[in-house]
């Protein structure tokens, strides 16, 4: 491009700065207000500085059990993450060859992204109502203590997977687009079985990217509302609990909760980045010796 900074650069940089301010401003406000004093309200000015509302939060708050919802979301997120990584990796490997139905699967995944979440959510709710009806019509020994099949790790998990898997698949496409197939050929020529070449060649190379898939899976699940809304059963996840709280809670407790969940996200992201950095370092140590004598 041309030399020197043009006027356009400064205008655009200013625009970018405003956008970042727009992104962060409200979050900073929430962060500050979560340290509101015991007498403080939902808005400025700050009425003293304290961690009072964080304490209130962990006491349980009375209305809903935030702690339980927090752990439920974390557990569901963990299961979703593992399944997303495993299923996406398998499918990613599959797409390196031709197979029957590959177009159908691709367009289904895209459709799952495009169909409005509430429609999918409603569909899953209907599916589990149908299953419930079928079980209840069945023999007595089956439905003695049966209430519903819908729950966190059945319908809830299903709903989350329809959201995370398309992203997982698309990321896998990007990964294998850049993957050098000659490395596998080399492994094969050295006599490696398909499993060995996957385990010792492919997997170590794509592992950092898989952490990316995991991170995507977790954050999509951790934050999910629309798909879970009808499909989750009786135990709400944290975002659903939060959504309910927006209409009932009128204290800075909800800001404290916001600061806490943001904190969790930051920890997860930091762990993921650390993992990627460690893997990169390991690759550099054990990786290529090309050109070294």
């Amino acid at each position, binding site marked *: *491009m*041309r030399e020197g900074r043009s006027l*356009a650069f400064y205008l*655009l940089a200013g*625009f*970018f700065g405003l956008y970042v301010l*727009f992104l*962060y*401003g*409200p*979050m900073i*406000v*929430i962060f500050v*207000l979560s340290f509101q004093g015991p007498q403080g309200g*939902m*808005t400025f000015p700050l009425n003293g500085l304290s961690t009072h509302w964080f304490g209130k939060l962990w006491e349980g708050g009375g209305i809903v059990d935030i702690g339980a919802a927090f752990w439920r979301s974390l557990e569901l997120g963990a299961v979703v993450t593992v399944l997303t990584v495993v*299923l996406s990796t*398998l*499918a990613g*490997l*599959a797409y*390196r*060859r031709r197979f*029957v139905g*590959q177009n159908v*699967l*691709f367009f*289904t995944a895209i459709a799952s992204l*495009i*169909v*409005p*979440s*509430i*429609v*999918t959510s*409603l569909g*899953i709710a*209907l*599916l589990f109502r149908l299953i419930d009806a079928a079980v209840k019509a069945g023999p007595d020994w089956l439905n003695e203590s049966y209430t519903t099949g819908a729950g966190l790790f059945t319908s809830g998990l*299903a709903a989350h997977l329809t959201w995370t*898997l398309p992203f997982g*698949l698309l990321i896998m496409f990007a990964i294998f687009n850049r993957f050098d197939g000659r490395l*596998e*050929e080399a492994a*094969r020529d*050295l*006599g*490696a079985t*398909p*499993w*060995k070449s996957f385990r010792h060649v492919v997997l170590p190379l794509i592992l950092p990217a898989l952490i990316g898939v995991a991170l995507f899976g977790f954050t999509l699940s951790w934050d999910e*509302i*629309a798909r879970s*809304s009808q499909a989750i059963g009786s135990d709400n996840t944290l975002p659903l609990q*939060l*959504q309910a709280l*927006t209409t009932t809670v009128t204290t800075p407790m*909800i800001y404290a909760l*916001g600061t806490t969940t*943001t904190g969790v996200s930051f920890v997860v992201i930091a762990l993921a980045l650390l993992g990627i950095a460690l893997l990169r370092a390991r690759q550099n140590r054990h990786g290529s010796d090309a050109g070294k004598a």
Partner: protein
Amino acid sequence: MTDLARPSSAGAASAACPPPALGGAPAATALAATDAAAAPRAARPRGRHGWAPPAWLQALPMGLVFALFFVLPLALVAVVSLMDYNDYEIVPSFTLRSYTETFEGCYDQLPGLCTILKTYWTTVELCFTVWLLTLVIGFTISYFLAFHVRTVLMQTVLALLCTVPFWTSNVIRMISWIPLLGRNGLVNQALIGAGVVDVPVEWLLYSKFSVVLAFVHLFTFFMVIPIFNSMVRIDKRLIEAAYDAGASGWQTLWNVVIPLCRPGIVIGSIFVVTIVMGDFVTVGVMGGQQIASAGKIIETRLNALQFPPAAANAVILLAATLLIITALTKVVDIRKEL
């Protein structure tokens, strides 16, 4: 390392040999050549030393999840939308009742709009406003990152800076506007303090304004990522050529950059359109549960446990969304871009 001791016929592959029997003993198949040379580059040949699962089997788990929890539920929605219902259950007989009731009185009120059409009009209006804003903002941000930030490192840092807020829950990011926009919020305090207004401005919060603001805040980056992605792939020499041929900045933008960014623009638009069309959470929280949208109709019906009308509305919403997206994909073939 023990592999090296095995007799290996590496390099002796000949396309004339028959393909190895799947699952055959490793030693027996060792001499049978794979058709690697003839296969497309990305193809993974069957193992000579072990069994590699066929591709369809590897794709099967994901396929099953989509079949069971996406395709089947969608079919159920379509079927249930055609069923009759009473106060507490779905009645298993087919009828168009849910659809006719949804559009009840629409024909008589023409040219005036009935409730459902008004709601859809609001939704599409909302969708269009958000789309336009996210597109303009997203395009500008991408343009700055792609053409004015010079090093890849700086591009990455600035892009990461924009993704950090995504680590906060959507609901939290929505309610974070409340202390700013509320009656006693920062904006009103500032306006009154500056003497611009005497009484707090009411339309800042729980209005279409706050809904649009929240959408733009939440989803502009969904527009930035794909547009930036297509922008960095543009050959910089094309821009130089346009400049050398005497094109002005705007001409280059309009005739070179925008056409080349079209795939990114379409993909970003699809994201934003789908989210806004189906949303009921943002509209609910930021609209103070006062604004009707297509997603809210479904939610309301569901809260009343009226599944068939909810399903009928879901089908209508899906049709409307797909209509908009089909129009968008007419502009570009997504499959080609991946």
